[in-house]
């Protein structure tokens, strides 16, 4: 396979006013190769992609494409030459058909009218050539599932005779089976000799799909290695710039008495769910999107009305009618949807951190908020959770995903709750912040807290929890302990549909 590279950057540098975004990066991409590009936020991945894709022009250095030096001035130049970028957010027009989206701007014409027959035939040929023959060229894009939409985006790239496709976090909104589909398509492209650069925060994907890994830190190349010779610890260590022995971390704690327990709770979606979490324990819940994980947690805190079953807190029956009741009793839920359900954009960090606390009368004297105390506490928690911001007066809107997540956690923890329900606390944040959150979860369990950790990432669930529930279609399909918590089991049970409730204890 090692022929000459289809793409090569030599000492590529991009300087923005006041910051060197990319510093002397030399990268090679061979035909038929999948190159993983990894690094923390701000490491220079996007800048590099944009330089290759013609969005930016380099400050220094060269780009060689198919052996010749190129100077793309616009994304269109790069696209016409055969370099496409598939972005995280899809750029499709929802009300048009698949075929129209693929050939938009270039619809085949015959005497002034659109030649629909040719359009559909061309589209079909592209789809079939890349393992996407299941997609109907006439289907309206808005009606397609997100995974299929992404395939359309890839087909669009291929319609330009792409020789190189850059994928920027392509799986951020895909479910498990959709990711598998994407990988199948990528492998087909690979066979056709197309060079692929794959950017992702998800290291498991990097290890599954790439041939080589190119690691960036602070705009510089810190390592390039064949995937087969790499392991997760090495890659993460290079990304964050210090030695990481264990990415996932269980800490030292022994589960004690049951803190929160649900027996047979149900509503129109949840089907007789049994669930418990002990003090000094980290319980994982794994399931695909729509499996009922979020619904379960919301039912536990009273944000969804429960039809049947009961909830016990420290052995006493409780009936939370509103999240307020749960918070008062030391049960706190932190939503996965930071923007939509957790943070108040437009408000400063300190107010976000104390919103929950003032509901139960902390930092309040006869109805009046004690701003000085509030700010002091918020400042302390922001520091404790390592929120990186110039001051606690910064609008949370302006923080990175990782720092927003830390604000969410500070908000949840400031009340010193006994039971902490964390819904996807690591979604969309970079690996440095993830490591901090894994440590924090272990610390909480050590302090005697009952922690529930919902995640869509298998390695986290396997590596950070003491006990795992798998969920599917509103049911708990299995409860796994000790050595039973492994990839094979978790995947098997989370895909199990309508499994017997007997699997739970």
């Amino acid at each position: 396979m090692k022929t000459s590279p289809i793409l090569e950057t030599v000492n590529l540098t991009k300087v923005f006013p006041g910051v060197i975004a990319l510093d002397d990066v030399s990268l090679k991409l061979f035909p038929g190769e999948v190159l993983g590009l990894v690094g923390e936020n701000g490491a220079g991945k996007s800048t590099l992609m944009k330089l290759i894709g013609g969005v930016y022009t380099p400050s220094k250095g060269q780009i060689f494409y198919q052996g010749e030096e190129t100077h793309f001035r616009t994304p269109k130049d790069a696209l016409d030459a055969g370099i496409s970028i598939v972005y995280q957010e899809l750029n499709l027009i929802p009300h048009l058909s698949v075929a129209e989206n693929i050939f938009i701007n270039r619809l085949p014409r015959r005497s002034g009218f659109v030649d629909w027959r040719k359009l559909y035939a061309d589209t079909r040929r592209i789809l079939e050539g890349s393992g996407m023959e299941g997609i109907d060229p006439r289907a309206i894009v808005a009606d397609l599932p997100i995974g299929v939409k992404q395939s359309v985006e890839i087909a669009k790239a291929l319609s330009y005779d792409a020789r190189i496709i850059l994928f920027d976090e392509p799986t951020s909104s895909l479910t498990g089976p959709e990711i598998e589909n994407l990988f199948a398509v990528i492998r087909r492209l690979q066979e056709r000799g197309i060079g692929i650069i794959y950017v992702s925060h998800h290291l498991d994907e990097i290890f599954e799909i790439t041939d080589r890994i190119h690691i960036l830190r602070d705009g510089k190349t810190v390592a390039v290695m064949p995937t087969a010779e790499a392991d997760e610890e090495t890659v993460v260590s290079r990304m964050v710039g210090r030695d990481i022995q264990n990415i996932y971390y269980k800490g030292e704690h022994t589960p004690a008495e049951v803190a929160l327990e649900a027996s047979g709770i149900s509503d129109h979606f949840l089907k007789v769910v049994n669930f418990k979490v002990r003090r000094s324990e980290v319980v994982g819940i794994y399931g695909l999107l729509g499996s009922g994980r979020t619904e379960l947690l919301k039912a536990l805190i009273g944000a969804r009305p429960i039809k049947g079953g009961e909830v016990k807190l420290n052995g006493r029956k409780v009936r939370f009618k509103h999240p307020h009741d749960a918070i008062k009793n030391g049960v706190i839920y932190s939503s996965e949807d930071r923007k939509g359900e957790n943070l108040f954009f437009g408000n400063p960090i300190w107010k976000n951190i104390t919103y929950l606390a003032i509901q139960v009368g902390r930092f309040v004297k006869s109805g009046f908020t004690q701003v000085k105390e509030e700010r002091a506490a918020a400042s302390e928690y922001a520091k404790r959770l390592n929120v990186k911001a110039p001051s606690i007066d910064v609008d949370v809107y302006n923080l990175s995903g990782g720092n927003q997540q830390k604000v969410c956690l500070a908000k949840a923890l400031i009340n010193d709750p006994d039971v902490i329900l964390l819904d996807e606390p690591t979604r969309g944040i970079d690996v440095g912040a993830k490591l901090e959150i894994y440590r924090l979860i272990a610390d909480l369990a050590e302090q005697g807290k009952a922690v529930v950790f919902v995640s869509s990432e298998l390695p986290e669930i396997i590596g950070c929890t003491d006990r795992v529930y798998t969920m599917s279609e509103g049911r708990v399909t299995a409860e796994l302990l000790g050595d039973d918590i492994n990839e094979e089991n978790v995947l098997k049970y989370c895909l199990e549909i309508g499994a017997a409730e007997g699997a739970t204890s």
Partner: protein
Amino acid sequence: MKLNKSLFSSSEFIVLLGLLAIGAFFAFTSPVFLTKFNLLNILLQSSIQGIIAIGMTFVILTAGIDLSVGSVVALSGVIMALMLHAGVPVWLVILINLVFGVAIGVFHGFSITKIGMAPFIVTLATMAMARGLTMVLSDGKTIFDFPASFEFFGAGTIGPISVAVIIFLLYAFLAEVLLRSTVLGRNIYAVGSNPKAAALSGIRTQWILYFVYIVSGISCAIAGLVLTGRLGAAMPTAATGYELDAIAAVIIGGASLMGGKGTIVGTIIGVLLIGVINNGMNLLNVPPFWQSFLKGAVIFLAVMIDSLKNRQVEV
């Protein structure tokens, strides 16, 4: 340093500059404008609008709207007038009037939170119903002749200052303190900023919505009391179109119709801006048709400046 920066870039400050600029213009063009009598007059004329706009601020902070305020003010006036003529003592009339304001708010709160109706529609319906009831109860006629102790709230003075102005400023002060320094106030902003996050943070969002519509209802009742007292008459067509001036004042003052943003101080500056324009144009004998146009243009400009300033923040 930082405080100064946020102060000078705030919406309130920019509108205040606009108010001063327009004031300066009228001061140069009309010899009467800057007299003590005229300035107190502007404050008096703004007080009824101001009381209504304070209630509107609460509602708009939660991303709601209350179109019924003008009609409710008129209805409150007619109800009080009829009770006074029936011989009900003044203190009881005022109390029942406030209860009436609360009832309007509860009706709106119930329709919005429990039935799930849109605030715009509910209050549009109330606007028509209240105006209709006003006509029915008054038989379309103006009602006169009230006890002096009743008219005191609109027409009386304490020293050189009208009672109406005192009520307005006191009410504004209470509202500002409530919004700025209490948990309830913080929760109103939270519900407007992100209702889902508010509920999951333990805020009982439905109670908050009830509360803001009740505040708006009470504001109308107080405005009805002051207006009826000042005019010495309850007119079925009173306060027509006040809802639009109130909404304009709140938005000029820097609030967002999307909720979560706005202050009482801003609203008051907005009310005064509209009051100054009305007053100045009268002093300059601007024809009424042009007055309406110019007022609209100023509202447009004020909101445009704020939108341009905030544009980069939006996605």
